[in-house]
């Protein structure tokens, strides 16, 4: 059936003038300095309250100081350790974490990208990695000691194993989860596989990749302690071990406090990188 009210062949139309562009109303992102200070104060409230309470309970004799020293005693211990190569211990641990995290994360980015990008790589590698991921960190230790001795190599490899899996998961799942509609747009522009990866897949997967890196760094600190508890003569894990062997709970707690501080600093750095890199994201916070 055809209905023809009037013949028309001219596409020429008198267009309406373009409407004036209303200025976009940028959404508010980031906090004002006052808000940030209030949030920091709120974050400090719980640990400060716990420390003050602990100090009072220990000084009041309600908790034996040899089992749980007062925070002031831990600060004294840290001061003492400061005169006995504390920086050397911190440096050794930090370097191990840096080396292990860098190598584990680099390998994870490469393999995660391969698994995310190609179904063949996924079929080949992913089942094995998922099985390896389930192995507890301490299970690797005897094998690494057997293979690599007791020097730096087994510690760095153990940390690398710890960092590898969260980063691998972040990269692979991030790439696999890229919005199909964006890839369809990219296909219109005839991008090569490399161009598609560089210009669309990696930026789109960046939130998941950065989350993986952040989790990987956090696990690198945990695996560092596991590595140093077993065979080390330097490092925060060694301090933990030394404190236990000499029944010095203050040293153990000082090392734990340092681990918390270093972990928080490294995580804050990663969070800052994440926030800066993902400023384009239209997210809740």
């Amino acid at each position: 059936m055809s209905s023809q009210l009037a013949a028309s062949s001219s596409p020429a139309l008198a267009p309406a003038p373009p409407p004036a562009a209303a200025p976009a109303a940028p959404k508010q992102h980031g906090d004002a300095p006052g808000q940030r200070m209030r949030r920091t104060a709120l974050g400090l409230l719980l640990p400060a309250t716990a420390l003050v309470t602990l100090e009072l309970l220990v000084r009041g004799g309600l908790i034996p100081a040899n089992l749980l020293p007062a925070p002031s005693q831990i600060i004294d211990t840290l001061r003492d350790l400061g005169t006995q190569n504390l920086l050397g211990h911190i440096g050794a641990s930090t370097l191990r974490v840096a080396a292990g995290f860098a190598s584990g994360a680099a390998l994870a980015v490469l393999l995660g990208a391969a698994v995310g990008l190609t179904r063949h790589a996924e079929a080949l590698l992913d089942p094995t990695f998922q099985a390896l991921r389930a192995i507890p960190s301490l299970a690797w230790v005897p094998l690494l000691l057997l293979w690599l001795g007791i020097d730096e190599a087994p510690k760095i490899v153990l940390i690398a194993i710890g960092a590898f899996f969260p980063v691998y998961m972040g990269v692979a799942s991030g790439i696999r989860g890229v919005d199909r509609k964006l890839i369809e747009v990219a296909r219109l522009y005839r991008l090569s596989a490399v161009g598609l990866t560089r210009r669309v897949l990696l930026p789109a997967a960046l939130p998941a990749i950065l989350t993986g890196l952040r989790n990987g760094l956090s696990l690198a600190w945990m695996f560092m302690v596991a590595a140093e508890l077993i065979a080390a003569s330097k490092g925060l894990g060694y301090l933990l071990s030394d404190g236990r062997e000499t029944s010095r709970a203050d040293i153990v707690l000082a090392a734990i406090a340092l681990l918390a501080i270093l972990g928080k600093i490294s995580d804050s750095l990663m969070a800052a990188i994440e926030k800066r890199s993902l400023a384009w994201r239209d997210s809740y916070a």
Partner: protein
Amino acid sequence: MTIALDIHVREKRYDARVVLRDIRLQLQQGEVVSLIGTSGCGKSSLLSIASGLDRNFNGTVALDGKPLQGVSRDIGFIFQEPRLFPWLTVAENVAFDSNNALATQRLVTRLLAEVGLQEHASALPKQLSGGQAQRAAIARGLFTQPRVLLLDEPFSAVDAFTRMKLQDLLLKVAYQHKLTVLLVTHDIDEALYLSDRVVLLDGGLTEFHPGPAPRKRGDMDAARLKAGILASLHV
């Protein structure tokens, strides 16, 4: 008139389900054609085939008489959603296909002015309203200076007032760029307002001619034609 785009689909199926069979749609140069039909009738499939994005069909697509072997710079595509890359600014999105910075800057500035987004070149997509984002998508679709523009329900996600503004914008750019336009829409009024020819896809193709341009929104001829289209659909 010269045939700009010639789409001939002998068969398009998804697994066992045939969605298009023996469809031939030819667009004359400079013509604005709307493709309408019920959900699932194969409108978007036909558009995807025309764009070169879908090559898994039995048939041919020819641009100016030459068979298309896939996507082409000569065919622009505007999706239902803006689909801007959220990590790129508006200008970077528009120039996504570029590798010439200087020529790009001039072209982007001109295109953004045409779509009324000149003040938003450095904005991120998250800072745009739905209508502004779709304007940016139109500018991106025009960046390769295509001869044919395909649009898949491009205004369905915006409010009625924005939709009318975007419809007028489409007519303006189609005229200024001498574009041949194939628009998929479920809105019969939109099809009648924008098109030289309205094609109803319902197993086969049925054509309707809204009349000479410029058109008025909701005039009596359009109302009669709309009734005819609805009767064809047994609505």
